[in-house]
C-alpha cells in the first residue's frame, strides 16, 4: 500500500499546489486504494496487487487539460534539466538534524559562558585585593572558550550550507518521517521555550526575594544574588537557543520542497499558513508569551484565583487570529 502511495506522491510531487491538483490526487488515490483492496481480497499477493494498480494507473498527461496544466507540462519539459533539485536522502536528513542539534548545544553553551563570565570578577573581586584582576582573567578565559565553541559549531554545520541556498527536495517518505519527528518534538519545544523565556523574564525574582529576607549580609547582596541572576539568564538563553535551533532544523528540511508544488506541502498538511512572515513569527511565540504573562503576573500579585481567566480569553483570541490571518 505504501508503494502505491509513494508512487502517486512522486508522480504529483512537482505539480503546482492547487485545489484542483490536490482533488485529482485524492480521487486517484481513492480509486487505487479500492482496486488494491479488492485485489488483495481476491487472494492476490501484495506484489501482484501493487504491480497491477500501478500498471493500470495511466498517464498524468491525461490530466493536463482538465487541470489547466497544459502549459505547465510543456514548461516542465523545457526547464526540468536546467534546475535540478538536490535530493536529500533520509540518512542525510537525520544527520542534518543531529548536527544542527550539536550546533545548537555548542552555541548555547557559548552564549551561556559569555553571560556568566561576569560572575568571575564579581566573586573573586570580593575575596581578596588582587581578586579583581584574577576575576577579569577568568572572565576572558570563559569568553575565549565561548569563541572556540562558536567557531567549532560553524564547522559542524558548514557542509549543510547548501540547504536553503540551492533548490533541494525531500521525498515523500522522508518528509513524512521528519514531520512526525517534528510533531513529537513540539511539546518539548514549547516547554523549553517557555521555561527559557520565563527564566529570562523572572531572573530578578530570586535576587529580590533574597534581598527581602536575608537583608543585611553584604556577601549575599554583592555576590550571591548577581551570580544567581546571571546563571538564571544564562540557562534561559541556552534553552531558547537550543530549542529554536532544533525546531529550525525540522522546519528548514520540510521547507526545502518548492512551496508552489504539491511536494511543498509534504509533512505540513496540518500547519496553518499565515499571510506573512511577521505574523508567522508572532503566532509561534503566542502561547509561550501568554504563559509568561500568566506566571509573571500571578507570582507578582498572587491572585491565582482570578488570573486563570487569561487562558479562555487567550484561547478565543488565538482562534480568531488564526482564522483571520491564515491564507
Amino acid at each position, binding site marked *: 500500500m505504501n508503494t502505491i502511495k509513494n508512487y502517486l506522491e512522486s508522480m504529483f510531487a512537482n505539480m503546482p499546489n492547487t485545489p484542483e491538483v490536490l482533488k*485529482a490526487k485524492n*480521487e*486517484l488515490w*481513492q*480509486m*487505487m486504494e*479500492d*482496486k488494491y483492496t*479488492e485485489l488483495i481480497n481476491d487472494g492476490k499477493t501484495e506484489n501482484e496487487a501493487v504491480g497491477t494498480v500501478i500498471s*493500470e*494507473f*495511466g*498517464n*498524468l498527461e*491525461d*490530466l493536463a*487539460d*482538465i487541470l489547466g496544466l497544459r502549459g505547465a507540462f510543456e514548461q516542465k519539459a523545457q526547464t526540468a534539466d536546467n534546475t535540478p533539485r538536490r535530493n536529500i536522502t533520509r540518512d542525510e536528513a537525520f544527520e542534518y538534524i543531529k548536527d544542527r542539534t550539536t550546533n545548537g548545544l555548542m552555541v548555547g553553551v557559548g552564549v551561556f559562558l559569555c553571560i556568566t563570565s561576569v560572575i568571575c570578577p564579581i566573586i573573586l573581586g570580593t575575596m581578596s585585593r588582587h581578586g579583581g584582576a584574577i576575576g577579569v582573567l577568568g572572565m576572558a578565559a570563559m569568553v575565549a572558550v565561548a569563541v572556540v565553541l562558536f567557531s567549532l559549531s560553524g564547522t559542524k554545520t558548514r557542509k549543510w550550507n547548501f540547504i536553503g541556498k540551492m533548490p533541494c527536495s525531500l521525498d515523500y517518505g522522508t518528509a513524512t518521517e521528519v514531520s512526525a519527528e517534528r510533531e513529537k518534538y513540539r511539546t518539548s519545544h514549547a516547554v523549553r521555550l517557555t521555561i527559557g523565556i520565563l527564566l529570562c523574564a523572572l531572573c530578578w525574582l530570586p535576587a529580590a526575594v533574597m534581598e527581602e529576607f536575608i537583608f543585611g549580609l553584604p556577601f549575599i547582596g554583592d555576590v550571591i544574588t548577581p551570580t544567581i541572576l546571571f546563571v538564571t539568564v544564562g540557562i534561559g538563553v541556552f534553552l531558547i537557543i537550543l530549542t529554536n535551533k532544533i525546531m529550525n532544523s525540522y522546519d528548514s528540511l520540510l521547507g526545502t520542497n518548492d512551496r508552489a508544488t504539491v511536494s511543498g506541502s509534504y509533512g505540513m498538511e496540518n500547519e496553518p499558513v499565515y499571510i506573512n512572515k511577521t505574523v508567522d513569527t508572532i503566532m509561534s511565540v503566542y502561547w509561550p508569551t501568554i504563559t509568561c504573562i500568566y506566571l509573571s503576573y500571578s507570582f507578582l500579585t498572587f491572585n491565582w484565583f482570578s488570573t486563570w481567566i487569561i487562558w479562555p480569553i487567550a484561547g478565543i483570541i488565538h482562534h480568531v487570529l488564526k482564522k483571520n490571518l491564515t491564507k
Partner: protein
Amino acid sequence: MIEISSDVIRGYNDTMILFILGDAPSYGYEISKKIKQLSKEKYLIKETTLYSAFTRMEKNGFIESFVSEDAEGNGKKRTYYRITEQGKQYYADKCEEWKLTKDVVENFIRDNGIY
C-alpha cells in the same frame, strides 16, 4: 491478441460511463470495474482517463458529483457521480452518433480483412 486502440475508444469513454450511471449513481473504482465486466474484460480504463472524463463531463453539466458514505457501510467517504438530464440527452446523442459511425465504417470492412 489485438489490443484496443486508445485513440478510437477515447471518444466513447463518456458513453460507457454515462451508460453505467444511467442505472444508479456510482464511484470511480466501481465504474471502472463495471466497464471491465461489461466489455468482457476486453477494455480496461485507466484511472487517469476515468478521472479526466469525470471532471470534463462535470464541467459540461452531464454529471454531478456528491460525497457520500460507502453503501457497504464501512464508513468510508467516497465521491459519487450521478447523471443529469443534460447528460441523458448527451448520452442519447452519443448513441445515435455511434450507430452512424458504425454504419459508415461497416461499409469498408471486409470479412476477416481478406481481399
